[in-house]
């Protein structure tokens, strides 16, 4: 359900984090799952509250914003051709990010399990290796199902 609009993009060429987030948010908008305000709200939030996370295996970002900009819960995925700099959540440290999961979520604790599995993914080296190599949307969705993020 979180990937049923297939906003799944591989090896995108972007110049910085704003460019990456803009492209990904525009795709979510085109899929009809977020409101027109979503993109600006995500960018604003990223500058106030950065969403980069340096795990033991990889630097990722999980941009998101308030639930009122979301029509249907969905996750947009983007793998970058070349890493860009994000700031880390909590301490603003600069980190190198090549994988982005943009979360369009409603305010609900139902999403806890999915979020926990997503964080688990970031700490699972084998799954991250796969994520760095796959090239088709089908393979991506299969991987998300294996991990339990997608039902």
């Amino acid at each position, binding site marked *: 359900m979180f990937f049923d609009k297939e906003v799944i993009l591989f090896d995108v060429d972007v110049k910085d984090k704003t460019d990456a987030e803009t492209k990904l948010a525009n795709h979510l908008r085109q899929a009809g799952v977020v409101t027109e305000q979503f993109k600006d709200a995500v960018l604003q939030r990223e500058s106030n509250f950065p969403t980069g996370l340096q795990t033991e295996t990889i630097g990722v970002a999980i941009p998101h914003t308030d639930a009122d900009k979301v029509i249907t819960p969905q996750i947009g995925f983007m793998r970058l051709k070349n890493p860009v700099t994000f700031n880390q959540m*909590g301490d603003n440290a600069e980190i190198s990010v090549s994988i982005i999961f943009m979360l369009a979520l409603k305010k609900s604790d139902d999403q806890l399990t999915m979020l926990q599995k997503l*964080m688990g993914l970031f700490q699972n080296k084998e799954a991250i290796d796969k994520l760095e190599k796959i090239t088709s949307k089908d393979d991506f969705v299969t991987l998300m199902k294996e991990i339990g993020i997608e039902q």
Partner: protein
Amino acid sequence: MKTLMIVCGSGIATSTLAEGKIKSYLEDKGLASQVKMMKGNIAEQVNHVDDYDAFVSTTIVPENIRDHVISGVPLLTGVNQDKVFEQIVEKLDLK
């Protein structure tokens, strides 16, 4: 009953995650019944840090309250997360 506030930027994603992890930890240790957990966003709670026995944030907080706040980021990355649990237990003085 001790009070624990957990905040992030929006009160939706990462505070929910941090809350889940802390809750499991407290349950495992048999301490959950001593703690009332609450969740919010930093904008609403920034002036209320001292209203709670402990305050965890997954997002950046202003300099003037930094010493009063436990960073919840390790709960998201898994790096050094045991330290966060220790800090919470110590701050709440759980036994």
